[in-house]
């Protein structure tokens, strides 16, 4: 039985109000769990018609054209992964560097102020980042950043096509800015709790400050850092409005980092109002695919934590 342990005294007394209290707590727990089950069941059952009428191959189809019954989801899956990848590739080194600076380099008085600012910025709603990206950053990207990137890296063919401002690159950059505060705040916390004796021990052995950070602090905080990166990646994957405003919403597979594209969340939010029947079921199913991608990313991260736990124990993390 999954009965929860109750202190012996409380169980013996068999007093009615206490049983009522336990029952109330148990009922609330069941309610929360039921809500979660309802969530899964509702989405799966409503998405089911998409799979019964279309099968499963449409998930990897390349053409999205609902009026001709073509529901290829691949452009949106790729768009989701690509925008997230840009954001995370920018956010991981910059977030880690910022967290290290905040935890160990910045003068103590400034440290609290900057850390608090970063934590407060983590609460700014994503739609505000989207508005800023669309109105302020998109013209800068169109007129300055993208022409420069094309002239500098045009030979890679990653930067072909017209300069439009909105597109994959801008979406990735907005995701980077958006997930940065969360990542920095959590990373700073886990970096700051690495035991001081280890830091001092390394310094006593003659290590430079950077060697201390790289060989003692970062490995010691590895599990927590991976957790922070996972959380940030999850937020980037599921972000809807900020991305929908700046990605350009084009249902084609991007051939350049500047191309307009679309993600699964932006597809859902842009098409929801006009959809019915099969198309609506397809949108529900797209939400299901998004959930599966999120779970997959999470599992990879958990596996990473699990597989590095052994080696970091060898390095003497504790």
């Amino acid at each position: 039985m999954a009965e929860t342990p109750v202190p012996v005294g409380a169980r013996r007394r068999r007093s009615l109000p206490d049983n009522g209290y336990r029952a109330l707590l148990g009922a609330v727990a069941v309610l929360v769990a039921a809500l979660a089950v309802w969530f899964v069941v509702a989405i799966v059952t409503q998405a089911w018609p998409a799979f019964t009428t279309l099968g499963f191959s449409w998930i990897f189809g390349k053409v999205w054209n609902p009026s001709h019954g073509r529901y290829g989801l691949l452009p949106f899956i790729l768009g989701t992964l690509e925008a997230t990848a840009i954001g995370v590739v920018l956010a991981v080194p910059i977030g880690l560097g910022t967290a290290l600076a905040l935890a160990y380099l910045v003068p103590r008085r400034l440290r609290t102020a900057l850390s608090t600012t970063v934590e407060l910025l983590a609460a700014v709603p994503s739609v505000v980042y989207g508005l800023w990206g669309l109105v302020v950053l998109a013209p800068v990207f169109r007129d300055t950043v993208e022409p420069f990137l094309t002239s500098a890296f045009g030979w890679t063919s990653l930067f072909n096509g017209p300069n439009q401002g909105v597109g994959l690159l801008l979406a990735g950059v907005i995701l980077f800015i958006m997930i940065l505060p969360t990542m920095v705040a959590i990373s700073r916390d886990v970096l700051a709790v690495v035991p001081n004796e280890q830091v001092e021990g390394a310094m006593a052995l003659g290590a430079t400050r950077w060697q201390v950070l790289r060989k003692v602090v970062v490995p010691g905080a590895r599990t927590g850092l991976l957790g922070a990166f996972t959380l940030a990646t999850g937020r980037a994957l599921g972000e809807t409005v900020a991305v929908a405003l700046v990605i350009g919403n084009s249902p084609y597979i991007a051939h350049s980092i500047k191309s307009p594209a679309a993600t699964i969340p932006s597809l859902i939010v842009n098409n929801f109002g006009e959809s019915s029947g099969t198309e609506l079921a397809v949108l529900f199913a797209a939400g299901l695919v998004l959930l599966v991608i999120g779970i997959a990313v999470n599992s990879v991260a958990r596996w990473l934590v699990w597989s590095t736990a052994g080696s970091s124990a060898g390095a003497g993390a504790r």
Partner: protein
Amino acid sequence: MTAVLDSPADPSVERRRAVQEAARSSLRRRKLSSRIALGVCWAFLGIAIIPLIGVVVYVVAKGLPAWNLDFFTKSTTPEGIPGGGVWNAIAGTVVITTIAVVVTVPVGLLGGLFLAESDGRAAATLRFTADVMTGVPSITIGIFGYIAMVRNFGGASGIAGAFAIGFIMLPVILRAGETAFRGVPQSLNEAALALGARRATIARKVVVPTALPGVITGVLLAVARGMGETAPLLLTIGGNQYLQWNPTKQMEALPVLIYNNSSQPYADLVQVAWGAALLLVAAVLVLSIGSRLVAARLRKERR
């Protein structure tokens, strides 16, 4: 002694010199790479701070000019018609957030008590469920709100939006509550038990009051998070350009208004979006800062 050291023929002196030279060059090399790497960290700090401050500065600079009496007291006007405000969206956000809070806080805190007081498999399952719920993309929660409420209960409404926002807030409050309740010293619990108090009484008179700073902080942060959520509301509340206090009807909300206005080609609508963004950011920051102040004040009083 010195004579031996100075003798160039002695091989051990040669080796000592070589080692010292190697150590010196190693130190030089390591100091240089340390300086470069730490410089990169500082540069990254700058790269991170600039856009974040830039967002806030822009929101203030572009939002403040949009603020006037009409902005706070009138409802939105269609494009081209000057004037108008966001009163309808403010009302919607207040009503939706309030309903979500009133329903979610008791459930979340009782769930948090359950987690804090039990260690069995049921608690582990619920804890895992809450963690998974926290990571679910908000757009799928919007889909859930649409399926569960909009379809079943006669169309888009403020209630449907509150349902989705509450679903987002619930796991946050649950886990914040658990953390706060677990922080209550075991000795207090045992003292109350020794006095013959019932578990329900202990929870009411000992656990909850002691954990109050943590609880308030968690709730305020959850409210701040729920207030800014946009995607779930886009699928559930339907939008309304007129003032509507009745949550069973279609409503407007600040994040939805920002989203819809920001991609409009009309400068005055974008202007309203900036004003609404400033209002939303200000409200979220007040909640976040307030939660810290409350927690600090209560903690100090208790000492």
